[in-house]
């Protein structure tokens, strides 16, 4: 709760500094504010406080996911100054929008009421629509924003209609009340309820980027400014998943027959489409977008499993996915800066000129591919185990098949970096600091690989 307040205040301060042209003050404020929010966020650990008539629930789930969101945001801000190096203006609007959307994300993990969910989603999404189009001069950015907006608001319509039907069936927006209703009427759930639930699921599936509602992802991720893509792919996705999980977990766990089949179909389609479509991409950025789709499929499995330590597994998966994705995008930003292209060819020979960066990228790719002993593997395997414990072996098998396919495209950048000579000898001379930052994130990934158990047991 206090994290939201902190972030909001930081965002407003940023806006003020921007308005008064104090460019140099903006990032320091953020770098103070985000850790502060992180610490403030941790204060409610193990207390499970319900704020404002159960609008906001500050339990360990919330704190863990909010901590992750804040941390990811911090990492992304770390890369921001280099990304926006050439831009002279203060950029307070972009930073503020990122922070605002972060507030939306924080709301989504903690909602105790569908109103909060809706507002959170919209706060996050609206900011992201804007951020996607923040590179006004670039028609691709415009197009991404427009597509995102059109599809996003369309999906919001379904989400709302679903909420309305749900409300019609059980007369409340409060998750606890809905759960109560579910328990009381488990035997004869009205169709209105189930359709409301499914439409909500569709809306959330859209937000997490699950097939067949994933179509916006590749285009938007590709067209948006890379830093924003990173943000979308990590914070946006993790927040949406946290919300999805909380929604299903706190209210609909007892009526899994209503949503399980659909989610399984989503998961299967997502895994297959994401992985297969990624195979053929030339642009690494777009490939990462499809990879994001595929990973959404895996994370759906955690929701399908739901019981046991599924929440912890979802957290672990989110951690592994986010940090690896950030690493990959950070490298991508650098490569793009050097070569002016996202094409896989621009990675050629990177290892020779810049071994640390290549190493970081390799770690990220292998982790995403789920190669042991990296955290990506631990996450996948824990996910599979928790799904299998719920009797989802066929789903897991499909997921594993997807993983097989994914190895190919995750390897392509690695191979390009290490084993292909670059045609033009691009020096890849990134700023030293930037390289160190990338290395730091990659090392983080390695360190985290040794403590997956800790992460799971957080929740």
């Amino acid at each position, binding site marked *: 709760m206090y994290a939201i307040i902190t972030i909001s205040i930081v965002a407003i301060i940023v806006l003020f500094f921007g308005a008064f042209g104090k460019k140099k003050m903006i990032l320091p404020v953020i770098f103070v504010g985000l850790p502060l929010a992180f610490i403030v966020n941790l204060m409610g650990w193990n207390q499970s406080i319900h*704020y404002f008539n159960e609008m906001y629930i500050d339990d360990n789930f919330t704190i863990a996911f909010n901590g992750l969101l804040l941390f990811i945001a911090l990492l992304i801000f770390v890369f921001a100054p280099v990304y926006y190096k050439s831009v002279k203006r203060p950029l307070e609007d972009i930073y503020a929008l990122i922070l605002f959307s972060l507030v939306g994300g924080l709301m989504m993990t903690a909602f105790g009421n569908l109103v909060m969910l809706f507002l959170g989603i919209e706060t996050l999404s609206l900011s992201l629509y804007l951020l996607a189009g923040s590179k*006004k001069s670039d028609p691709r950015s415009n197009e991404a924003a427009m597509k995102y907006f059109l599809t996003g608001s369309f999906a919001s319509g379904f989400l709302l209609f679903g909420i309305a039907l749900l409300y019609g069936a059980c007369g409340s927006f409060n998750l606890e009340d809905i759960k109560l209703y579910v328990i009381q009427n488990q035997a004869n759930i009205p169709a209105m309820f189930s359709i409301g639930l499914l439409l909500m699921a569709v809306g959330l599936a859209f937000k997490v980027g699950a097939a067949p509602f994933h179509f916006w992802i590749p285009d938007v991720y590709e067209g948006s400014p890379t830093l924003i893509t990173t943000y979308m792919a990590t914070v946006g996705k993790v927040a949406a998943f946290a919300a999805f999980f909380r929604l299903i977990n706190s209210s609909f766990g007892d009526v899994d027959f209503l949503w399980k089949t659909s989610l399984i179909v989503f998961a299967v389609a997502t895994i297959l489409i994401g992985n297969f479509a990624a195979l053929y991409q030339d642009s690494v950025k777009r490939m990462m977008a499809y990879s994001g789709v595929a990973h959404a499929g895996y994370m759906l499995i955690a929701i399908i499993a739901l019981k046991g330590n599924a929440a912890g597994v979802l957290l672990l998966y989110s951690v592994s996915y986010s940090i690896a994705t950030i690493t990959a995008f950070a490298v991508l930003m650098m490569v793009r800066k050097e070569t002016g292209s996202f094409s896989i060819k621009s990675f050629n020979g990177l290892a020779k000129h810049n071994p640390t960066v290549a190493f970081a990228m390799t770690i990220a790719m292998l982790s995403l591919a789920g190669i042991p002993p990296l955290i990506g593997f631990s996450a996948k395997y824990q996910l599979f185990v928790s799904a299998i414990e719920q009797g989802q072996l066929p789903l897991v098998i499909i997921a594993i098949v997807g993983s097989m396919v994914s190895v190919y495209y995750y390897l392509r950048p690695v191979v390009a970096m290490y084993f292909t000579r670059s045609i033009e000898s691009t020096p890849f001379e990134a700023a030293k600091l930037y390289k160190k930052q990338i290395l730091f994130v990659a090392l983080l990934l390695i360190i985290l690989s040794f403590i997956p158990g800790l992460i799971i047991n957080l929740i």
Partner: protein
Amino acid sequence: MFQVYLFLFLSCVALFSAMMVLLSKKPIHSVLYLTLTFFALAGHYILLNAQFLAVVHVIVYAGAIMVLFLFTVMLLNLNKEGQFPKTTLVKIIAAIAGGLLFVVLIGSLKSFDLATVSNPAVSQIGLVKNLGKTLFSQYLLPFELSSILFLSAMVGAVMLGKKDKE
């Protein structure tokens, strides 16, 4: 029965004008039909004794949103007829999709048992007083947080709208 006829009338107006939003060739006509729809819906709200919503609805939609639409149409000079017609195939597919959606939704919802819903003689909850109480007690947090939403929308609109110096 008067109320039912009123309901039916308002519904017909709303549906007709909604259809016309789609069928109109000129954007300006669409906007005007949309306004009509909104007014019909405002009538519905009144019918439901949700006066507060009715008022807000008119202010927000007819007052703010419609103006924005009109403003955009004028600004960008979009009011040309027959712009970018969709192919017939798309239209057919869309019609099928819409029909199916409708059928499926109705098919699912028709079985909804009214008896399960309380049917009070007079609903007073739509009055400003009641809603205000709820809004500022139970829904205080979302209310406050919606300011963040507005703020971000504002910042964003400014960001997109202003011309970059570079």
